[in-house]
């Protein structure tokens, strides 16, 4: 008896080994994903609803006329573009700085890297305190009315605040990628260019930069995807606010796409908001999908060149 059980187990172990992960993956990722695509074409309103009417592209057309969605889409692109540039430029600078054989180099690296290990909810809390209390305190002490007002109260400064914290959080991680790349540059290459009389900028421009090109592609795409999906910080720092009044009525000035999807979906049963949020999420997914395809294309083709 035991022998047969053992034999059976042996033959079907592949099945049992795969079952827990695959079953949960299908239930929790695959089914909701496919269902979500379907539901974005229906009048889906809430979680308990059991019958759905097919409404074609209505949700998509509706959301494309939504001022807040269009605003959030545009703001997400701006936020992402600024993030990619600021994070990568500063990360390269810091990576070069901390690879100069400094005495406390490990301490510096750890300090720059640590914000990346902490979740957006906690970082958002800390910075909320800094923007609402610490900076206004300095402003009052100096008699500076610009600093005395919380950055989070005003659309322009709140956007700046979100970008500041978002880049601060991510620079250290991207810096580590550039450090690894810089350490891989053969030492004699840099020495040779120094002997040839190249100054620091020329060494950077003609030796370091070409040698870390592959890493710049990686750093750019990592930052791109990460910034595009930003949610936690956005929620904690300003919850999308402050409100800004424009042509389309009231607009949440710092509301990125991720947050907009969640907020719209949580409106729940009001006028197809669930399905509308879902169609927005599908658009969000399609943009990320295109980014990932580009990423694969760029990282692959560079590898061939090397």
């Amino acid at each position, binding site marked *: 008896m035991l022998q047969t059980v053992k034999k059976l187990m042996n033959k079907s172990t592949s099945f049992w*080994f795969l079952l827990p992960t695959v079953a949960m993956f299908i239930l*929790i990722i695959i089914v909701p994903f496919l269902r979500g695509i379907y539901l974005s074409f229906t009048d889906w309103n809430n979680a308990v609803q059991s019958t759905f009417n097919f409404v074609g592209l209505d949700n998509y057309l509706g959301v494309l006329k939504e001022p807040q969605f269009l605003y959030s889409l545009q703001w997400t692109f701006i936020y992402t573009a600024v993030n990619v540039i600021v994070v990568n430029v500063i990360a390269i600078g810091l990576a070069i700085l901390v690879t100069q054989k*400094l005495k*406390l180099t490990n301490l510096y690296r*750890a300090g720059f890297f*640590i914000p990346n*290990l*902490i979740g957006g909810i906690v970082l958002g809390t800390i910075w909320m305190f800094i923007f609402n209390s610490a900076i206004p305190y300095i402003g009052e002490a100096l008699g500076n009315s610009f600093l005395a007002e919380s950055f989070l109260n005003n659309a322009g400064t709140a956007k700046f605040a979100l970008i500041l914290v978002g880049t601060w959080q991510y620079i250290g991680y991207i810096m580590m990628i550039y450090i*690894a790349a810089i350490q891989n540059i053969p030492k004699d290459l840099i020495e040779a260019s120094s002997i040839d009389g190249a100054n620091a900028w020329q060494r950077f421009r003609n030796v370091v930069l070409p040698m870390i090109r592959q890493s710049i592609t990686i750093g750019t795409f990592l930052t791109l995807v990460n910034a595009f999906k930003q949610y936690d910080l956005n929620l904690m720092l300003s919850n999308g606010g402050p409100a800004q009044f424009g042509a389309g009525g009231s607009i949440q000035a710092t509301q990125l796409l991720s947050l907009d999807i969640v907020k719209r*979906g949580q409106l729940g049963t009001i006028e197809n908001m669930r399905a509308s949020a879902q169609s927005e999420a599908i658009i969000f997914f399609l943009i990320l999908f295109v980014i990932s395809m580009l990423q694969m294309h760029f990282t692959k083709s560079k590898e061939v060149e090397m």
Partner: protein
Amino acid sequence: MSKKMRRTFLEGTAMILFFIFIIPFILLVINSFKSKDAILDNPFSLSGILETGFDNYINLFSDSTINIGSAFLTSVFVTIVGLVLVVLFSSMAAWVLVRSKKWWSKIIFLMFVGSMVIPFQVIMFPLISTLSSFSKATGIETLGNVFFLPIAYLAFQSSLSIFMYHGFIKGIPKELEEAAMIDGCSRFQTFRLIILPILKPITVTVVLLNGIWLWNDYLLPQMLLLGSDTITLPIAINRLASQSYGTNYAVLLPAAVLTILPIILLFIKAQKHIIKGMVEGAVK
């Protein structure tokens, strides 16, 4: 510029930048030991620390509306059980997917890896409705059930984990397993006695990367535990901030310190592994 001056200049620049980067944490820790009034009075002053001491932290654990102590334990539970499930089941799955040459193994592997591009926002709302139908059909509680959360993490973290294990297992010579099987080991014994120990280096990476993610994650627990009194630390902090405590930093800041502390301790202990794992994960 002489060489020595250049050295001093670089060291000084790095030191200044280092302080700019960590000032938020310094302010956080200082003010977490000050009374509400002392914080509002001057966030940069050290005065008031001795009088308040650990009072804020003690109050945090005795707060009746939001119990940070129980949120801390919930976070520990979810992170540890989630990690055990992720490590065990994704390494098992990855092993089969590498060794099996059947047509389906490639398809399943592609399903896992391909799903990495799906953002959480696309799955979030349909997940809730799928799980509520699933619970109705099977009677298994999934929503508002803290024991289901680690299982959900198995699904959400399996793509990355299987991908990492897959890459590692490919480099293990098959002869080891064959020898074990000839010696009479079942496949399960082979996995437990031969494969699992070899996987240790990559398991360290999988544990660190997933552990940090699980500890910090907000949106998934927030969705799955909606309406439940059992909440994780990030949810507790968000609730503290959005409830009456909006500006009560004497509660919010110690709660933030409590959430950060385990990660900092982990980082001090495993700095090299964490950085190496994160950089290698990105480059692949």
